[in-house]
């Protein structure tokens, strides 16, 4: 990892978290605020088709492409888990 990568990764991750919490709030209108600890499927009941829409909207908003090849349910347990995955598996568009 280069010096500039280490500087931008946390920044990108923060943008992903911001974008994801806003989108999830809009899509699912949960009764409690969405945080990094919010569980996507177990707590919000996020379906796979809405998860797909979520990924697409994050891609459009942040102008990135997410590589879904390695994505697994374990990596989308919480908002933080999915933000970690996206940060590590995306390229700028």
């Amino acid at each position, binding site marked *: 990892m280069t010096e500039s990568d280490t500087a931008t990764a946390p920044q990108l991750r923060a943008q992903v978290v911001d974008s994801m919490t806003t989108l999830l709030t809009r*899509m*699912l209108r*949960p*009764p*409690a605020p969405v945080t990094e600890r919010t*569980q996507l499927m*177990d*707590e*919000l*009941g996020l*379906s*796979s*088709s*809405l998860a*797909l*829409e979520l990924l*697409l909207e994050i*891609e459009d908003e942040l102008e990135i492409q997410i590589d*879904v*090849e*390695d*994505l*697994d*349910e374990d990596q989308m347990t919480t908002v933080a888990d999915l933000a970690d995955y996206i940060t590590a598996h995306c390229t700028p568009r």
Partner: protein
Amino acid sequence: MPDAVRIWIVSARVSPDELARYRALLDADERSRAATLAQAATRDRFTVAHGALRVLVGRAVDLPPERLSWRRGRHGKPTLTHPRGGPQTSLSYSDELVAIAVAGDRAVGVDIQHPTPGLDPVALADRFFAAEEARLVRSGPDAAARADRFARLWARKEAVVKAAGGRLWPQLALPVHRDDVVRCGDPVGVHRVTDVATPGGYRVAVALAGEPPFDVATSYGPTGWTDRPAGTPAEDRRTR
């Protein structure tokens, strides 16, 4: 005689009494998973889905529903562990309906999809589906047709991946439009998938492991099986 799979399409909206009866059938893990869900409607749908699954499988194996147990494998695929050697089962829910499949020895996957308002089926298919299927979704004559085509393809992909016990995400481009026989890459295997006629704009697909054709018998309505949706037969049996 071909293998058979039974499908039940059940309303997730039930009376408070029915909900309480379903809740009483759930085990500690299911109750705890239901309690974790933030929204009441999602929580109740989970309770109805798992309660109805217990009622139907209990009936099939002649055991009280609360005595059944499942183990969730990798990628969430459930296997009936009590009784051992019992039928293969699969469960799916979307919006206000629940789909339950009970098959024999062949691994089964069922999926139900309600076209979600706000979803952009053309953009999703362009980004994640293979080119031919993206073209198919895009060429739908109107917004409803495009959403329906997307929901059908999505249900077929999910049904196959669920039967295979695999991961959905690497297999979004799995071609499922033309052929009912689908070759999955991870885990490697051949599955047969078919659409299940469902009312109300929903799309349901069921897949079994292996290539041989199978019969599908579908029932609509709650586990009492009386108030089926208007205009649908109580049972739709077809041989493939």
